[in-house]
């Protein structure tokens, strides 16, 4: 394996690190990754833009990702859950609350079909969601208890 290949193979890990430090993959973050790995910014952005977990736009403190897969839909999640959260937070999927606290997104299957409906907030998975548990969860996050 040549040195260049080794550097490039570190790219996904480096992007995760940069995203953690900068909050999202801003041009500055992309630039920094490209310098560190001696790759062109174009190459870095090309790879980053392929993967749904890399945020090329800013996100709120809590990135709520609702699964809209078939199993979640059958279990009464997906659209119903998204609508519920839209009402609760006053934002549509893809939007962030004005205080920058919550971003709502829909995502594809998150391999929690046996415990649907499911959603993810940042790196935590929440399963078997009910109206009550979601409301409680959002309240806790709003008060900063988590």
């Amino acid at each position, binding site marked *: *394996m040549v040195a260049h*290949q080794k*550097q*490039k*193979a*570190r*790219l*996904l*890990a480096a*992007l*995760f690190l940069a995203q953690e430090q900068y909050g999202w993959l801003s041009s500055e973050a992309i630039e920094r990754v490209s310098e560190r790995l001696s790759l062109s910014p174009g190459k870095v952005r*090309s*790879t980053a833009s*392929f*993967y*749904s*977990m*890399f945020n090329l736009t800013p996100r709120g403190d809590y990135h709520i990702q609702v699964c*809209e*897969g*078939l*199993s979640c*839909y*059958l*279990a*009464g*999640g*997906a659209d*119903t*859950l998204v609508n*519920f959260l839209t009402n609760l937070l006053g934002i549509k999927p893809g939007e962030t609350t004005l205080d920058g606290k919550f971003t709502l997104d829909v*995502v*594809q*299957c*998150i*391999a*929690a*079909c*046996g*415990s*649907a*409906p499911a959603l*993810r907030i940042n*790196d*935590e*998975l929440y399963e*078997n*969601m*009910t*109206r009550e548990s*979601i409301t409680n969860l959002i309240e806790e996050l709003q008060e900063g208890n988590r």
Partner: protein
Amino acid sequence: MTAVDDPRSDFRDFQPILTQNIHRPDSERITTYLEHGGYQAARKALTMEPGKIIDYLKRSGLRGRGGAGFPTGNKWEFMPQGDDIQKIVVVNTDEGEPGTFKDREIVERDPHQVIEGVLIAAYTVGANKAYVYIRGEFFQAVKCWIKAIAEAYEHGLLGENILDSGFSLEMSVHRGAGAYICGEETAMLESLEGNRGEPRLKPPYPTSSGLFGLPTLVQNIETLACIPHIIKRGPEWFAAIGTKESKGPKIFSVSGHVNRPGNYELPLGTSLKDIIYQVAGGIPGGYRLKAVIPGGASTPIIPASNINIPMAFETLEKAGSGLGTGAIIVMNETVCMVEVARRLSKFFCHESCGHCPPCRIGSQRILDLLTRIKNGQGKVGDIELLLDLVKGIDGQTFCPMGSALVNPVRSAIKHFRNEFEFHLTEKACLVSDLSTVKEELCLIS
């Protein structure tokens, strides 16, 4: 355990193999695994001739559990021989097929079973490096992998000169970042190399030119978990479980309209009816079964009339579907099949890597058409147009995803064409009378 002509009689006596440890306290720890006979198979394998291990696998009849069902022994045999060639094993933990959640459970609860399988695989094919590629969203499983690998190093089961065999193996974990297509082996290799996860043209197959151009063996978690048991208890024991062409245990992920969704390990060949009604507790609310997706989103839908089918590679193929990953999605009579096709198409449209036009454009066109049919804006001829698109995509794409994305659409039209037609002519849903009951079913109401 004996071979059975009628496997339906067998599942009640079946003792779990792959999931035998997962309910023990601290099941993920190496000490727990060692206490229950862990790494004995590796100890045995490291004294065996690699050719003998491949012979074991071939006789066991093990076929890959990641979806394609390729005979594992044959795949290992494709790896070039010779110590002078650097070789690699890639551990596919990119479980992304909608409906599937078995590999995550194995990794979180019994990762050493998989490491032992990796060790045996690497020794057999002569690889000194193993890379775990794990789905980026599996935060918990990533931690489990890292911890388990560290434990294996501490116990001398990874690293230099493992168990004084002279064999060395380095193993590390690499996270994906959210792309279904990276579960396809060549896309996974691209991703491991730091690129966009676009599949490569095959041939060359990874076994001849894989990661960084080196011969690479890519295996699914559940497949690797089977390996230690085959080595320890022998190929004949393994081959006695299941049907003629589908050997061994299989973890079925059951979700959708069942009382007890979850992962269930059963012999291959267990009937779909038994899985739904006996194992998973039947359908809630007294509703009737309408349709089942038997092997994850990319396998064709089968109607309720096919409920007695044994869950095996050959039987499902014959029925026009496939075993896939063994992810069973159960749908009751209230489900609109146009919506099912639309939802699955949305998934495939979102996950198309964009490399080749039939998949990139075709998946979007299919989604648009299904959305308009669903919304009562469909036009006469839309069904034919859909089938025409399906024909233009199936087998015409760079990777197998093209065939995967047309399966739900084609099978939904094949078995439930009347629902599509009703949407077109009446601008309404044939099952809309039942849709009001959905609220009762809805878990979040």
